[in-house]
């Protein structure tokens, strides 16, 4: 404890200290300690956010002077821009598929690994590895795996077709406006499930054995124990994962950017990729920042809905 704080609190002892209670004259010191991160936050987050908001009312290409256009950028995006509607649809498609799949698969894997099997650390390491591998390298490998004629993923289907004479063709993954999104989703899941799994694994280890024992005594079957004990007990974790993964899914960028470039015909283009294109390829900074604010509004609304809904299904009992 620093000399300054012990002086103002009058006593060096922590006795009587309670969280959430300000002592007169202590605020300034707290702010002082917060200052380094507050300065960083102000310069690199807060001021740019305000600047971006201001910029969304201008037409600016980074070089020539910005021209004030009022709400034109928003009006154009919301009512005229056909590409915006397309990327919005794509982004929702990604969000409603990626988030549930990631949760279900992550939970299943966590439960499987929570059975006290041997070499648990090794499995955890293997499943977590994709999370820390470089997305660009991974996306290029996936590109290569998914190639129509020369890709490994399709090779066995072709071999089967050649051997049997059946007319079965594997998906033309990244050349098809139908399959391009599933291809991006597969890559995203492969990359992120390890994260979900590790968080769930931690939550599972916090579920007290006594609850399972009690359920067993009451005659609950394995699947009933999973449904009525495990799922409610990890619901707080589920809520956390839903929120952060939904935000992540709405901001999907690197996976489609490297693997499909948003194609074919914008079939896999996301909102964030469209922001990037407008800002750095089309010289439409104002439109890009307006898009970023619309995306913020969407994420904000969805997160708000989530926090409202959580009261109905999230349990915060600790099981003590």
């Amino acid at each position: 404890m620093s000399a300054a704080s012990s002086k103002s609190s009058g006593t060096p002892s922590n006795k009587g200290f309670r969280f959430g209670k300000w002592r007169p004259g202590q605020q300034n010191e707290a702010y002082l300690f917060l200052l380094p991160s507050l300065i960083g936050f102000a310069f690199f987050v807060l001021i740019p956010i305000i600047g971006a908001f201001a910029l969304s009312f201008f037409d600016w290409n980074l070089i020539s002077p910005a021209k004030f256009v009022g709400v034109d950028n928003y009006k154009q995006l919301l009512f005229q821009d056909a590409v915006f509607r397309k990327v919005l649809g794509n982004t929702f498609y990604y969000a409603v598929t990626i988030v549930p799949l990631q949760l279900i698969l992550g939970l299943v894997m966590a439960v499987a690994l929570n059975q006290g099997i041997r070499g648990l650390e090794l499995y955890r390491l293997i499943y977590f590895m994709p999370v820390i591998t470089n997305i660009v390298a991974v996306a290029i490998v996936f590109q290569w795996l998914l190639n129509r004629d020369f890709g490994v993923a399709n090779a066995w289907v072709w071999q089967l077709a050649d051997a049997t004479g059946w007319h079965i063709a594997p998906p033309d993954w990244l050349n098809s406006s139908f399959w391009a999104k599933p291809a991006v989703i597969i890559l995203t899941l492969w990359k992120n499930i390890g994260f979900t799994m590790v968080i769930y694994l931690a939550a599972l280890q916090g579920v007290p054995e006594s609850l399972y024992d009690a359920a067993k005594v009451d005659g609950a079957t394995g699947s009933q124990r999973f449904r009525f004990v495990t799922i409610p007990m990890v619901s707080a974790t589920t809520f956390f994962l839903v929120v952060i993964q939904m935000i992540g899914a709405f901001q999907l960028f690197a996976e489609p950017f490297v693997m499909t470039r948003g194609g074919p015909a914008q079939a896999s283009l996301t909102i964030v990729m469209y922001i990037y294109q407008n800002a750095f390829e089309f010289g439409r900074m104002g439109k890009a920042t307006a898009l970023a604010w619309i995306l913020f509004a969407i994420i904000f609304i969805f997160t708000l809905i989530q926090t409202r809904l959580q009261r109905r299904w999230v349990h915060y009992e600790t099981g003590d």
Partner: protein
Amino acid sequence: MKRWSLVAALVFSFVFSFSFAQKTVTWAMWGSPEEIVTHQKVADAFMASHPDINVEIWSQPWGDYFTKIQTLWAAGDASVIPDVMFLSPVVNYAADGVLENLDPYIAASNYPTNDYWPGLLDYGMYDGHVYGFPRDIGLEVLYYNKDIFDEVGVSYPDDTWTWDDLTAAAEKLTDVSSSGRVNRYALGMEGGKYQLWVGQNKGSILDDMRNPSHCTLADPAAMGAITFFANMMNKNYAIRDANLGQAGGDAAVFQSGQAAMIIQNASRISAFNAADMNYDVAVVPIPADGQRSASAAGAAWTMSSFSDDKDSAWTFLSWLQSTDGGQAIYTASGEILPALKSTAESPAFMAASDTPANRMAFIIEGDNAKVGRAGFFPEWNELSGSIISPALQSIWSGEASPEDVLPKLCTDVDAFLSQNGYPK
């Protein structure tokens, strides 16, 4: 006195350093480490012949270059903005007033602008003035794998080949399993190069690439050319655009033998030679009543209008773009077809390596180069990137036909043009 001698020394060194001060030209470009080595070689050669000017390289990887340089402009600090810059497309930056109009310098020094390939200098022009000198011309020729041609028994392409000859050869060169898996495509060509076919068929993307009033992609000439390319893909002769990118690009499929021919610029020569491939090049086949229509375009050296020493910058720029100066050094590095005809026809290009033997193909295409691949107006990137390319991708992917896509595409393009105030 000690103090006096110190002051005298200071004053002396001050005067001395000023009278012998070197002028510095900051020179900006993107490039891989290997490419930067060539650029440094060029800078060294210039400094050896011009001891009074010091050239400092400012380089960035391609991905960061444009955003970083735009940030420098936005900041507006003349002392850090490079004097001579590699840019593409020139017109975007010229329109923003950050580039120096080179016309007065060209007139004053009698710089030979007629040595450029036809149409090429247009790429460096805006509003009737020259703002940049293209370093090279990125025109395409037909690369073909001689081993595969020999194996299948197809005669090598030459300058009499038409689209029909290309299609007939493609049919034989393509190798498809009974399942429909393609083991070898006849042709690998990026979808983005489709305008080559359009130009050969005497069509165009827009009625005027500088000041367009409407889209001409639905006209019979353009429609015919796009249908030709689409059919090549639908019949499995040409690898589909998305699959080509996925398979590592045209150079990769050509080197691995997954494509017997590719249509690409001179940049691939050194890689194919390094891989010891048995290949040659030919002019690109044209329609029976068509024309050669290589694209006259290439990234250009430009001068910053913020430069604090424009005379030195011009001295460097004009040396860079001369057969005795930078052009020959770049050409000798083996990856470009130089912008100046005199350099291309010199041994620096014609005798650079044994393969490809038929380097005349580049000269023939160059002599017939035309503008038309890209628009010369600031909104072109947006028009192309958000409207034209996505629509064409649905043709290249085989999910839509040219007759369905092109009329609707032209409606969208026309709407974009009028929304942005074209024609001006």
